């Protein structure tokens, strides 16, 4: 994947910027590969896109974060109808959490664009390394159980879906609803600052904290990202930080890559993908940290 950034080395050697189409082609290829890996790894594309493209491509982090939000938004919008129809995503569950997340994400995007680039780069590097460690340490998330709380009952945060793997219908309800609102506000704020979809954090919050079944957590996480990122993306558009020249190849790449990833899902051992994701995140996080700290510009 990182070989896509080879034009950087060539351009540096010649002391001249590579042609625009070389970079856009490299961005398309990188987005395609990220799309494949993201589906296989069950993480949002943004968490890979922003640190990798921000570290190994010549685009300023302001533009990378703008594209990162649209990148994550495009992937989740495309998957949304299928997830809603097979009831792996619950609109009723997504609505209150997305409201909390989108307000915080909007604030996060404003903060992110106001902070100096080196501070954002350093914080991004530290966050990405922490995410890699979290994925490494936590293992597979297991389905939660528990009684519904009062707020969850008022909002009727419950549902039922057919799971062929479990051989029948699964009924579910949430717990710790207020804490869930807080968690999604925090996740949305970080997502807005860094231009991430933050699916890596949504799924544990829904599954472990709120006790939504894993499949519902994964599906609803995508739906929440599609709502939350819509508000943060407009901050970047209004600030002039969304370059369509970068956004369209990235969107096209992730859409095609996601389709291939979905087909490869049955063939690829989960532990292989997991190790690749951890290695890539550690590398990209270390690179972002080094750039932010001025060690490696």
């Amino acid at each position, binding site marked *: 994947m990182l070989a896509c950034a080879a034009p950087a080395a060539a351009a540096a050697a010649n002391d001249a910027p590579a042609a625009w189409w070389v970079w*856009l082609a490299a961005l398309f290829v990188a987005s395609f590969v990220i799309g494949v890996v993201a589906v296989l790894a069950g993480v949002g594309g943004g968490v890979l896109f922003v640190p990798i493209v921000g570290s190994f491509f010549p685009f300023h982090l302001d*533009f990378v974060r703008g594209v990162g939000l*649209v990148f994550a938004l495009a992937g989740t*919008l495309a998957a949304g109808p299928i997830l809603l129809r097979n009831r792996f995503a619950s609109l009723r569950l997504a609505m209150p959490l997305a409201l909390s997340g989108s307000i915080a994400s909007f604030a996060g995007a404003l903060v992110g664009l106001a902070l100096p680039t080196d501070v954002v780069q350093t914080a991004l590097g530290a966050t990405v390394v922490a995410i890699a460690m979290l994925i490494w340490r936590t293992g597979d998330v297991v389905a939660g159980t528990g009684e519904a709380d009062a707020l969850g009952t008022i909002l*009727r945060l419950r549902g039922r879906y057919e799971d062929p793997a479990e051989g029948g219908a699964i009924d579910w309800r949430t717990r710790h609803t207020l804490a869930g609102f807080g968690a999604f506000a925090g996740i949305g704020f970080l997502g807005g600052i860094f231009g991430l979809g933050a699916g890596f954090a949504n799924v544990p919050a829904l599954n472990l904290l709120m006790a939504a079944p894993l499949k519902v957590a994964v599906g609803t996480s995508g739906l929440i990202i599609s709502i939350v990122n819509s508000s*943060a993306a407009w901050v970047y558009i209004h600030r002039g*930080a969304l370059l*369509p020249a970068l956004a369209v190849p990235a969107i096209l790449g992730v859409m095609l890559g996601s389709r291939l990833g979905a087909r490869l899902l049955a063939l690829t051992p989960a532990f292989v993908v997991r190790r690749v994701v951890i290695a890539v995140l550690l590398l990209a996080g270390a690179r972002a940290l080094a750039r932010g700290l001025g060690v490696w510009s």
Partner: protein
Amino acid sequence: MSREQLVQELYARWLDAATRVAFAASLVAFVVYAGGLLPSFVPLDALPALWHLPVDRYLAQTGAPAGWGWLPLLGYSDYLSLACVALIGVVTPACYLAVLPVLLRVGERVQAALVAIQVVVLLLAVSGALAGSH
């Protein structure tokens, strides 16, 4: 079909259609932009010397507008492309507006209130009213 399923199916239908329209428009506009079929405000050839700049300096150097200032520039292929990419950002508000009357009709008042507040938040984001000064 339960009330919840009815609303979820309606949202899925709108999401599917709106997303297809936004993606198709983005792709066509990008072909116009990259193919040079219309003049661009910032030529693609100039981008490699500019995209490493922070957004403030990029705007200052190119004279590109912030906020809704790009709306009168839709005759330029880069801003036409931006407008089509921005359509992706209005898919969700469109879906919410589509389900709001149905939620009210079936008596889902709490959900309708959440949807109404979310629409206000999204429309404020789209309007740029809270995006801050540049």
